[in-house]
């Protein structure tokens, strides 16, 4: 059985098991929708008072927010296994079982759980995205869609990379420290506003260290016809989401180092 079909099996099993409790599934999804929805209340309230943020309008922020939110929802749905890695695998010694199977650890952890409840977060992001489409006067050509889908793919890769890094850290710390929350939930918070409102050190951090800005700010600004605000050539801005994939690549490489370093804790 090839990897993709096996992964399909994993997702199927995971979905069936989650659907055994339809009530809990619905409640958790609605909760995810509400919890992320309140974030947008803050954006709305600030705009209703101040009208604009350094020349950016509400509809434009909605598009930034939608793109980054949808990216994170995808990554969060797929990488649950890495999110709980420290607690569920390292601390218990269960990682040993993954190592003896003739499949890659990454595939097995991706298959650990497909979190369908993240549909709540995804829908909330998509809804705000639609609001952005409605409020801005962009011509929605296929080039625009291609740009934004590339941005979402890059964003999902970046967030997955962050969660894999958090899991990698657990090889040394045993427990998963939730410091990655600053970059995941906090990253969504930071990247929902255009990068050029931030201080220079923070902008550089979000471009070169953890390229959250590259997967949303640069391509979305071009789509909005505000390429001048990015400070780089439009072509560079359009290709920027590729850095999200590069980040994921580095994370996977570090993961391999971590696996080699792993010593079992089980007794």
């Amino acid at each position, binding site marked *: 059985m090839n990897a993709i079909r096996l992964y399909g099996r994993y997702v199927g099993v995971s979905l069936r098991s989650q659907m055994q409790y339809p009530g809990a599934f619905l409640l958790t999804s*609605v909760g995810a929708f509400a919890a992320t929805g*309140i974030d947008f209340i803050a954006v709305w309230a600030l705009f209703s008072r101040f009208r604009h943020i350094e020349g950016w309008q509400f509809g434009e922020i909605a598009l930034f927010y939608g793109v980054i939110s949808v990216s994170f929802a995808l990554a969060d749905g797929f990488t649950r296994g890495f999110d709980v890695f420290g607690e569920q695998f390292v601390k218990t010694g269960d990682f040993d079982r993954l190592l003896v199977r003739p499949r890659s650890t990454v595939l097995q952890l991706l298959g650990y759980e497909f979190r369908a409840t993240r549909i709540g977060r995804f829908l909330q992001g998509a809804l705000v995205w639609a609001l952005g489409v409605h409020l801005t006067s962009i011509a929605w050509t296929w080039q625009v869609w291609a740009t934004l889908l590339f941005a979402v793919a890059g964003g999902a890769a970046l967030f997955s990379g962050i969660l894999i890094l958090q899991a990698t850290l657990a090889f040394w710390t045993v427990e998963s420290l*939730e410091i990655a929350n*600053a970059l995941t939930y906090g990253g969504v*918070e930071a990247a929902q506003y255009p990068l050029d409102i931030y201080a220079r050190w923070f902008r550089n951090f979000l471009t070169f260290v953890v390229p959250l800005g590259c997967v949303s700010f640069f391509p979305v600004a071009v789509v909005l016809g505000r390429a001048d605000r990015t400070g780089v050539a439009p072509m560079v801005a359009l290709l920027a989401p590729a850095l999200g994939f590069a980040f994921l690549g580095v994370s996977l490489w570090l993961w391999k180092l971590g696996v080699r370093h792993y010593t079992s804790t089980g007794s």
Partner: protein
Amino acid sequence: MAVALRPYQAVFRARFQLLLQYRAAALAGFGTQCWWGAVKIMVFAAFLRGAASSPMTLREAVDYIWLGQAFLMLLPWTADPELARMVRSGDIAFERLRPLDTYAFWYARALARRTATPLLRAIPMILTAGVLMPLLGFGMWGLSAPAGLAAASLFAVSMVLDVALSSAFSTLLDVLVVATLSERGVNTFVGPLTIVFSGSLIPLPLLPDWLQPVMRYQPFAGLLDIPLRIYSGHMGGWEATAALGRQAIWVVVIIALGRLVLGRVMARLQAQGG
């Protein structure tokens, strides 16, 4: 009197010391909160640069945001996980057997939770924003001293009322968990509510003007908004005194409500598990 209080003091002390052990989690949380505070402050400053007028100055908002992060764990956004476990296992029945006032006993537990955990978070946050940042030359973006002696003393009183109110809310959540048999529903809906209405999401004065009358009188304001605005001098004199009065009234109301619901729940308690 002192003898009657002893079991409640004992549970408070035991829980308090237990909760102080979670230092690694507090440190990880601290890093995350620094990030949130910095992002919130930069976003607000950017909005303010293009604004003709604002109900809060940058100085007031910066203090509000840092203190909001420092006292984040004071917010009653989840029920006590241990009590939820007791509901599931059926151990909750033992609570009925204690020759104690159940509400007061749970209130003492909540009081420990709403002092120990916030203390672990608040100390590093206040030291970083209030001492380290000014030393590094970022005083403008750090936490400043209270607006004066009067503000400082009113702030202290308000914080005491805040802890009392937060513990009353926490106990009410615990009671609701027992009533609904699961912490899931309570946590899902109370969390977002608390974050929005306490001012943790954005400072309440920044919400639209038409919402302000509602925001002023609702109970969650006493969990964060009132002490924080007193601290920076955004609210002073009679206005601040009246706000303290509202906090005190809500403490009484929420405790009474918790007692009422607990009485009803305990009268027909069904133990789960086996």
